[in-house]
């Protein structure tokens, strides 16, 4: 188990280094003089000199990369241009809001998706299954930002059940979380259905039924336990989907999180802040999937034994 843990951790290091490289590259790609573009025409010479020094644009790329990795490792993501505050502080102000939103959505996706998929798989020709399958196709096809607007029109304007946007109470969380969760609910339901159906066809399920195990136990002990790994993998990948979706959901619902910060920063040409926020998202995604990998070991002893 320990070797397995260490191996997985080691494998994440090159990926993280690559992520930092790509994030650094985004500023390299800016056409023209990035510093002039970021600071605008009224910048003071000191500000220009300071930003140039931070970005190190006169040094070779390899040197810049090593320096950048060093700074990131020490938790220094530079200073935002608009607010002239450390990027780490700016991100620190907003990340709890995004965490709250994405965790709420992930819980909805996991619970509703797994239950719906399970019911579909156990009664595969029922009306519920037909509705759930069509529903998940729609869920996969709806643009998140549009779903949000439709929910606002129906539940905030017409029915006045929930506020239009902003934060503050659980009621504020409902519409954004549901909006963000819908595509993931659909994905999880589809995956659960097909994994459980696969398992229910296995010989050991037939054996269990033949020896008289109650159907409830067959489903919960055999089917769901064995279908757990693909579902868990999908939930890990859905975390990425949710982070991207959060950018849209936060914009629609004026939710003060990382996603809205990124969009604002892009329009303000505050690339240092954009870099920092993208980096935080990507690193969080890598770490979540690492955690999922490690959870396999606990769920399925075969995984950790193979190393």
């Amino acid at each position, binding site marked *: 188990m320990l070797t397995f843990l260490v191996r997985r951790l080691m494998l994440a290091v*090159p*990926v*993280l280094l*690559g*992520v930092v*490289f*790509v*994030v650094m590259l*985004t*500023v*390299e*790609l*800016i*056409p023209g003089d990035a510093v002039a573009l970021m600071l605008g025409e009224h910048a003071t010479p000191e500000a220009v000199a300071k930003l140039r020094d931070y970005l190190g644009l006169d040094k070779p790329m390899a040197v810049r990369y090593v320096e950048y990795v060093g700074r990131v490792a020490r938790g220094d993501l530079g200073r935002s241009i608009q607010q002239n505050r450390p990027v780490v502080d700016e991100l620190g102000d907003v990340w709890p809001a995004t965490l709250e939103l994405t965790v709420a959505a992930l819980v909805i996706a996991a619970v509703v998706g797994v239950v719906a998929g399970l019911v579909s798989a156990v009664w595969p020709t029922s009306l519920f299954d037909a509705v759930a399958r069509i529903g998940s*196709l*729609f869920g*996969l*096809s*709806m*643009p*998140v*930002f*549009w779903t949000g*607007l*439709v929910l*606002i*029109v129906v539940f905030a*304007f017409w029915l006045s059940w929930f506020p239009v946007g902003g934060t503050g109470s659980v009621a504020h969380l409902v519409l954004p979380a549901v909006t963000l969760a819908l595509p993931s609910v659909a994905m999880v339901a589809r*995956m659960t259905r*097909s*994994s459980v159906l*696969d398992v229910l066809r296995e010989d050991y399920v037939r054996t269990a039924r033949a020896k008289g195990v109650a159907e409830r136990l067959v489903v919960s002990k055999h089917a769901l336990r064995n279908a757990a790994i*693909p579902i868990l993998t999908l939930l890990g990948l859905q*975390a*990425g*989907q*949710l*982070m*991207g*979706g959060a*950018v*849209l959901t936060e*914009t*629609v619902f004026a939710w003060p999180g990382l996603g809205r910060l*990124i*969009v604002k920063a*892009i*329009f303000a040409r505050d*690339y240092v802040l*954009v870099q920092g926020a*993208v980096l935080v*998202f*990507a690193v969080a*995604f*890598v770490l979540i999937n690492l955690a999922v990998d490690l959870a396999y070991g606990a769920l399925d002893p075969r995984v950790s034994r193979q190393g």
Partner: protein
Amino acid sequence: MAISAVGALEGPPVSVVDTGRLSAWGQFRRNRLAVAGLAIVALLLIAALGAPWLAPFDPAKQSLIEKRAKPGGKFLLGADEFGRDILSRVIYGSRVALVVSVLSVAVALTLGLTLGCLAGFLGGWTDVLVMRATEVLLAFPYLLLAIAVVSALGPGVVNTTLAVGIWGAPTVIRVVRGAVLVARETEYVSAARALGATALRVLTRHVLRNVLPTVIVYSTLFMANAILVEAALSFLGLGVQPPTPSWGLMVSTGRDLLLVAPHVATIPGLAILVAVLGFNLLGDGLRDALDPRLRGRI
């Protein structure tokens, strides 16, 4: 990911004509949802190609006295903030959606086929480098890589296409590389090499042919995602710029009128939903018809 190739090689040799299995087309035709998907995609193509003849009004023509007109009446789907006909703009919007998604599929396939073949054939350091790069790209959450690319390159149709294409490439690279690795070890490829076939010939005749169904299915499902990502970028103001009629952009401008005229934002969104649904249904149907083993994997 080379499910199709592995399965094909491990299957028992078929000597008798297999009458129990329908042809791929026969199977596809029996799937009502898939046929519905095909119909939607055909409709989209017709709308995109025939936009100048199908649209009842000029999509850019403003009529300020008729702004925010409700659906029905002169404007079937109503008018937007500037009194432009929403139906005409939705029809023209299909052009942007299709052009961006087709081209980004092309970008993803070009990158994916080239790098996947290189990695699979050359092996060694090239393979390690390509696969590590793929992992890094996959480490970016959905949409954020595209946002990062567009924020650096600037908004617009071309950069949106590039951003979406780069986002789709890693999966193609993995599929193609897997297929090349499997095929490299087969006897028929050794035989072809021994007979003096060039690497390129082996690649196109033997390897890529195996991976074709997977690539077709992936491309169709990717079209759906590409339309969604283009719409999302345009909604955020990072994609297609006004006055080009893009569905995502139309939803974004309609957002300010949500309380007084909800149709301005919601109708173009419906167009996105229908288009994406069409490609998803078609992709699912193609997967089941061409290679059911891919179910749950793509």
